[in-house]
């Protein structure tokens, strides 16, 4: 063979070798090792100390490392035993918790009443920037007037008494929230900064490694108190910010479970024989807020006209791909106290036009319509939904100009009341009506979560009464009445309660998505 001919042949051989090597490797990595679950998600955690943050990506991990005194139900927010096997109260002021015995923290120390007391002491002696959730759920810190907790004391090794200054209706629900997880006192006494990167709890998995923006690795805790759990040896949380790329990684077998699935991809996943589509029970609401301090939205009839003008069904069918229910109240039907007797505003442009005329806006008006710049489960595509709303409004003579800002700017400006009408939503923290209605619509929360600046004295009294009402029936009646006021006053156009989607490979079993968005993985198994 002449010298000239050798080169192309050699090159060809090299290419063949390389490509077969690559192909061989591809097969190896797509095979799952049965005891390690890789959970693909959109973002990284900020901290692994759940009491110090407000952001969901942290809780997704910590709910598997830590446990709380009480748990939520498997797929709802009913109260179930946790580290406390029993609890009771006679007057709604003194709560007695009987703890599980034989529970160990990951560092080998014992879980007991003293550890619980130390955790509560730590939070109560903190301040709002260290423990933001403690502040908002328990009304402040030691010495503050609003602080609900009078004392937390140990009675013997396995009994804890919590005394309240006044009854707090959602108290047990608050205790079950993943931010109030019981940590090893030995670990947090080393200092906050050390502790939030080396979490030590009693949960089914213990912490191994954290690579920023990449992965968080957890490993089975051998001394876990619930026998036979967890079933997996390892869990790896991997951050893949783009929804489509995350789905690609799932199809390629690099991850086993993915959250944040685009509604538009749902059908494709159902058709794929290697994958399963998982629906998270809804605990959210997406809405269009109307700032009631701005003209013409200070007029109730204009707000009602907006409600009649918007075609929610089209929005849900087009952009939620049907994975949502039409909203008529500010909270989803799964929450206790939901008023199902309320009849939602029907899509009726004619009636909307009449209401506008009655309000003195026969020729309509001009307004700004703020479109959400980021996708959220309750609003997968803000810009497109805004276009539908814009065209609905044009039908009744309202000229809406769509504007948008980057997310922090959007929230900042909206909370200052600078928007005419803005899209927003909320995912519940503890599944209590107070966490939706009071937080989003009461005058106490103007400037924080009440972006519409809506105010109603009667409704405010109902909320305050409901907060301390321990009788569940009476409480439900109070919230039902409040929802009637909200419906009539119409500070929002409630749009949708969406069903967030996840997907997993077929081999994943025992995964039960929780409405709060933090999923327990102790029962999950991975079969080849």
């Amino acid at each position: 063979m002449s010298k000239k001919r050798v080169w192309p042949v050699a090159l060809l051989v090299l290419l063949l070798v390389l490509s077969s090597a690559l192909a061989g490797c591809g097969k190896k990595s797509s095979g799952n090792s049965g005891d390690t679950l890789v959970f693909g998600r959109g973002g990284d955690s900020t901290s692994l100390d759940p009491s110090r943050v407000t952001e969901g990506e942290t809780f997704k991990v910590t709910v598997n490392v830590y446990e709380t005194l009480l748990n939520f139900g498997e797929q709802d927010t009913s109260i179930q035993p946790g580290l406390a096997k029993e609890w009771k109260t006679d007057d709604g002021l003194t709560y007695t918790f009987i703890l599980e015995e034989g529970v160990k923290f990951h560092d080998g120390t014992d879980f007991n009443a003293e550890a619980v007391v130390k955790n509560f002491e730590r939070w109560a002696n903190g301040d709002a920037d260290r423990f933001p959730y403690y502040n908002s759920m328990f009304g402040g810190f030691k010495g503050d007037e609003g602080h609900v907790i009078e004392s937390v004391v140990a009675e013997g090794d396995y009994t804890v008494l919590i005394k309240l200054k006044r009854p707090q209706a959602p108290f047990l629900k608050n205790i079950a929230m993943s931010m109030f997880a019981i940590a090893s006192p030995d670990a947090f006494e080393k200092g906050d900064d050390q502790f939030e990167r080396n979490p030590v709890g009693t949960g089914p998995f213990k912490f191994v490694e954290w690579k920023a923006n990449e992965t968080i690795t957890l490993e089975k805790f051998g001394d876990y108190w619930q026998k036979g759990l967890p079933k997996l040896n390892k869990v790896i949380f991997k951050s893949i910010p783009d929804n489509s790329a995350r789905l690609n990684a799932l199809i390629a077998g690099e991850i086993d479970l993915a959250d944040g699935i685009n509604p538009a991809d749902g059908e494709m996943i159902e058709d794929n024989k290697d994958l399963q589509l998982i629906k998270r029970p809804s605990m959210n609401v997406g809405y269009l807020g109307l700032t009631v301090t701005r003209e013409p939205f200070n007029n109730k009839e204009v707000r009602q006209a907006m409600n009649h003008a918007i075609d929610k069904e089209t929005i849900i069918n087009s952009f939620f791909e049907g994975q949502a229910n039409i909203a008529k109240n500010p909270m989803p039907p799964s929450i206790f106290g939901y008023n199902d007797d309320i009849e939602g505003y029907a899509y009726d442009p004619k009636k909307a036009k009449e209401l506008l005329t009655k309000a003195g806006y026969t020729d309509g008006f001009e307004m700004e319509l703020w479109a959400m710049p980021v996708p959220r489960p309750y609003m997968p595509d803000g810009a497109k939904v805004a276009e539908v709303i814009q065209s609905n409004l044009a039908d009744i003579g309202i000229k809406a100009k769509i504007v948008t800002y980057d997310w922090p700017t959007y929230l900042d400006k909206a909370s200052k009341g600078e928007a005419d009408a803005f899209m927003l939503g909320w995912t519940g923290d503890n599944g209590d009506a107070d966490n939706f209605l009071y937080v989003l619509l009461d005058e106490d929360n103007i400037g924080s979560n009440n972006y519409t600046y809506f105010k109603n004295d009667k409704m405010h009294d109902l909320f305050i009464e409901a907060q301390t009402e321990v009788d569940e029936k009476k409480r439900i009646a109070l919230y039902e009445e409040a929802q009637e006021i909200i419906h009539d006053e119409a500070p929002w156009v409630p749009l949708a309660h969406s069903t967030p989607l996840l997907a997993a490979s077929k081999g994943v079993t025992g995964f039960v998505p929780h409405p709060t968005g933090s999923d327990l993985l102790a029962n999950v198994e991975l079969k080849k």
Partner: protein
Amino acid sequence: MLSYVGRRLVHLIPVLLGMVFIVFMMIRAIPGNPAQVILGQQATAEAVAAMNVKLGLDQPWYIQFFKYLGGVLQGNLGESMRTRLPVADEIWPHLAATMELAFFAILIAIVIGINAGIVSAWFQNSWFDYIAMVLALVGVSMPIFWLGLLGQWTFAIEFSWLPTTGREPVRDPVNAITHLYIIDTLIQGRFDQFFEVVRHLILPGAALATIPMAIIARMTRSSMLEVLRSDYIRTARAKGQKMFWVVYKHAFKNAAIPILTIIGLQMGMLLGGAILTETIFAWPGIGRYIYEAISFRDYPVIQSGILVVAFIFVMINLIVDLLYGLIDSRIKYD
């Protein structure tokens, strides 16, 4: 030569100072309060106020500025408001991830881009020339998002040759020492992992390389065309030199200066982090690090992140300027 480098380094000081100042003012001009973003939607007004005091955001801007500047001069890049970790500790793993990807991408871009440009110039107006230049145009204008997802679909899902995302096999993670995984795996003798790390680099590297590759190819072509028309080339050919050597040895050396400039600029750009590529391929690089800091209004991270990137950018330009002398002995530094 040394005095030239010294002078250039002195000139860096006002450039970086000005940059720090501009970034400092810009991020404070955009609305949105870090305390509010960190504490979340649940936070009360008092909590936000307390956080502001803790973060020092209640002080006048000039005090904040000089405090930050004082820290930087002592080598302290500040502390992330969100994660409460020193920026200097956080930034390196991200920077290393970006460096690995950027070097890989620029390597692809140089090898393919320069050769495509040279051959296009050599056979000007041939079919190869036309196709290469159309591809270069497509390369510059192709959205990375689309290209990235298409690459994942083709090479990871249809053919299973390459992984879709990330920089290491997730079930067999690399034990990070330098955070440059190519080096880490070699140090530890894990050749299987080294091979995996390279496989993870191919798709994002290729996606990231498209734009610089196209720009380098076009610059090489035009620069080569100019040189190929000059008298000494005709002389070389008249002497009977093989065309290959005329083009690659005699012509290329004289055409290299503008190409080198472009490579330097592109390299600086790649090291600034490619947010889109890093997002699509879940690459934990500096672009995403800074981008996420912006959405959290994490001022120290934004400031120091951009400062580090800018520093690298000007250093690369300095290196390029020094390389001119190596290529063209007529260029002297004094």
